[in-house]
C-alpha cells in the first residue's frame, strides 16, 4: 500500500519588542536567572497585566502579511495548568477570539499552505536540570516574552514542503521586523503534528505531536523518521497512539514523552484582567500601508531595476539584513553587481567564518562602500582589498587608516613598474625566450614575478601593459 503523510505545524515566534507582553521588563536574551523579572511577570499575588501595544501591532502586521482576516474584536483567555515554568499557573493566550484567522502562504510550485489562526500569548520560563541536586532550577527571564503562535491547516505532505514554508515564514517575519527568528535563541520554535493514511483516503489518521525541534535539519529528519515509524506500525497492523513525542537529536529518533498525569483540560476562560482589543478600520489601514517591501518584491526589483542575475537577487534577499546592507551600498554609489559580488563572496564568507548572523555583524555599509571605491579607483588591487576587508570586518575598522598604516596602496608609479619589469626580464632570460617562441604561459610567469617584486601592490592591468610593450 502507498501511504500519504499529513503534517500540520504550530510555530511559536518571539516578537521583536523591547519589553515583555504584560510588563516593562526587557525581552533581551540571556541574563543571570531571574534578573529580567518583576512582580508582574513572576506572578506575585496582587499583580496585574497591562498589554504592550507593540505586541498587537506586530501580531496584526504578521497576520496581514500572511493574508489573514484580522479579528476586529479579539481578547485574551487564560489557559490553566500547573508547571514550574508557569508562575501564575496559567498562560495568558487567545483561544476564543484569536487576533487573526484564515490566512495562506504560497510556498512555490503552486503549493499553498492555509493558516488556521494566529494568536498572541506569553512565553513561559526556562527549566534547567541541576545534576548535583537532581532537581530543577526555574528561571523566569523568558516569562512574559511576547509570542505569536501560527497554526496551519494539515496541508503539508512532506518535509520539503515544511521547510519551504518555514523558510518563507522566517523570511517574511524578518522582513516585517516582527521577529529576528533566531532558532538557536528559541525565537522560532516549531511543533509538528503528523499522521499517515492510505494514499487517496480523505480521512485523517491518528496523529502524534513532536516537540523540541530547534533546527530545520532536526525538523526535516524528525518528519522522515516519524512518518516511517507510523507507516511501519500500521503495516504491522499496530495502532498509532495519539501522543506527544520528543525528538532526540543524538539518537536520531523520536520517543514518547512521559504521559501527563492528567488529561489536558486547560479550562480556558476570558481573562478578567484584560479588556478586549478592538481594531478600527483606520488602524488596520495604517498597518497595511506600512507593510515593508518583502523579499519576493525585492528579488524582482533587483533584477529589473539593477540588472542583478536571478541567483544574486535570491542570495541577497534571503536575509533581510543582507538586502538592507546591499541597498545601503548601492545608495552610497557602489555599482549593484560589484556590491552583490562582495556580499555573496566576502561578507557571507566572513559571517560563516565567524559563525555570525547577518544581523549581528559590526561591518557597516559605508566601510565596504569605501573599500570598493578604492578598488574601482585603482588605488587597491582586489586581492589586497580582500585582505583589508578581512582585517576590518570584525570591528568595522577604518579602511583608509588601515591601508595607510600597512602601506597597502597600489603602486601606480609607471617608473617603479618599469624598473621591476627590467629586473625580471634580466633575471629570466629563458622565459623571455619561451614567450618569444610563442609560449603564452611564460608571460603569466613573468607577470607573477613582477607582482612579487612589487609585493603584490601593483595593478595587474598595468604590469600586463608594461610587459607587453617591453616584449613587443
Amino acid at each position: 500500500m502507498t501511504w500519504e503523510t499529513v503534517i500540520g505545524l504550530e510555530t511559536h515566534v518571539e516578537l521583536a519588542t523591547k519589553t515583555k507582553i504584560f510588563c516593562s521588563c526587557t525581552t533581551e536574551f540571556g541574563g543571570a536567572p531571574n534578573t529580567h523579572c518583576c512582580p508582574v511577570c513572576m506572578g506575585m499575588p496582587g499583580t496585574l497585566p497591562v498589554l504592550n501595544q507593540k505586541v498587537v501591532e506586530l501580531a496584526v502586521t504578521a497576520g496581514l502579511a500572511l493574508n489573514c482576516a484580522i479579528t476586529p474584536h479579539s481578547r485574551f483567555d487564560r489557559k490553566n495548568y500547573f508547571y514550574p515554568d508557569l508562575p501564575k499557573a496559567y498562560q495568558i493566550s487567545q483561544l476564543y477570539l484569536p487576533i487573526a484567522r484564515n490566512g495562506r502562504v504560497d510556498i512555490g510550485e503552486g503549493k499553498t499552505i492555509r493558516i488556521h489562526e494566529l494568536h498572541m500569548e506569553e512565553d513561559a520560563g526556562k527549566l534547567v536540570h541541576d545534576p548535583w541536586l537532581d532537581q530543577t532550577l526555574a528561571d523566569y527571564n523568558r516569562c512574559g516574552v511576547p509570542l505569536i503562535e501560527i497554526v496551519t491547516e494539515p496541508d503539508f505532505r512532506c518535509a520539503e514542503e515544511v521547510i519551504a514554508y518555514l523558510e518563507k515564514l522566517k523570511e517574511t517575519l524578518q522582513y516585517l521586523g516582527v521577529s529576528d527568528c533566531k532558532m538557536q535563541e528559541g525565537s522560532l520554535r516549531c511543533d509538528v503534528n503528523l499522521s499517515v493514511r492510505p494514499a487517496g483516503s480523505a480521512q485523517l489518521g491518528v496523529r502524534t505531536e513532536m516537540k523540541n525541534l530547534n533546527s530545520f535539519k532536526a525538523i526535516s529528519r524528525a518528519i522522515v523518521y516519524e512518518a516511517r515509524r507510523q507507516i511501519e506500525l500500521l503495516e504491522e497492523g499496530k495502532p498509532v497512539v495519539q501522543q506527544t513525542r520528543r525528538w532526540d537529536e543524538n539518537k536520531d529518533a523520536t520517543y514518547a514523552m512521559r504521559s501527563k498525569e492528567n488529561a489536558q483540560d486547560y479550562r480556558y476562560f476570558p481573562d478578567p484582567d484584560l479588556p478586549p482589543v478592538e481594531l478600527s478600520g483606520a488602524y488596520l489601514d495604517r498597518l497595511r500601508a506600512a507593510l515593508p517591501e518583502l523579499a519576493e518584491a525585492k528579488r524582482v526589483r533587483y533584477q529589473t531595476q539593477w540588472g542583478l542575475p536571478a541567483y544574486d537577487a535570491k542570495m541577497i534577499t534571503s536575509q533581510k539584513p543582507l538586502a538592507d546592507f546591499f541597498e545601503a551600498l548601492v545608495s552610497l554609489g557602489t555599482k549593484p553587481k560589484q556590491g552583490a559580488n562582495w556580499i555573496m563572496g566576502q561578507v557571507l564568507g566572513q559571517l560563516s567564518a565567524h559563525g555570525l548572523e547577518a544581523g549581528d555583524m559590526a561591518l557597516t555599509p559605508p566601510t565596504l562602500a569605501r573599500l570598493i571605491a578604492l578598488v574601482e579607483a585603482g588605488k587597491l588591487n582586489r586581492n589586497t582589498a580582500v585582505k583589508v576587508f578581512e582585517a576590518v570586518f570584525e570591528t568595522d575598522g577604518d579602511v583608509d587608516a588601515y591601508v595607510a598604516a600597512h602601506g597597502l596602496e597600489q603602486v601606480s608609479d609607471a617608473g617603479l613598474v618599469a624598473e621591476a619589469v627590467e629586473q625580471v626580464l634580466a633575471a629570466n632570460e629563458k622565459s623571455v625566450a619561451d614567450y618569444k617562441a610563442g609560449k603564452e604561459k611564460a608571460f603569466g610567469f613573468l607577470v607573477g614575478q613582477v607582482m612579487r617584486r612589487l609585493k603584490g601592490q601593483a595593478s595587474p592591468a598595468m604590469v600586463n601593459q608594461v610587459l607587453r610593450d617591453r616584449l613587443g
Partner: protein
Amino acid sequence: MKITEALVDYISQLSRLRLPPEEKRAMTTELEGIVAYMDVLDGLDTAGVEPMSHVFPLKNVTRPDQTAPSQDGEELLANAPASKEGAFLVPKAVE
C-alpha cells in the same frame, strides 16, 4: 446534575488538591447541593444573550513598549521556599 465521587476526583486532580475519603464524601454531597441550586439559572432565558466578561466597555488598554528597570533579583527570591544561585528550586521537572 449529579456530582459523583469520580467527578470530584477529576476536579481535585485538576486543582492539585487531595481529599481523604471522608472529606471527599462530604464535599461530593455539598457540591451536589450547591450545583443543584445553581441549576436555578436554567429558568433564566438567555437565548441570544452575549456572555459578559467585562462589565464596562473598556477596550485597548495598553502601554507603550518602553523598558523599566526589573526588580532586584534578591527581593524577588526572598519569599522562595527553596532556591539556588538566583533560580527557584523544585523537584525534577525536566524530562
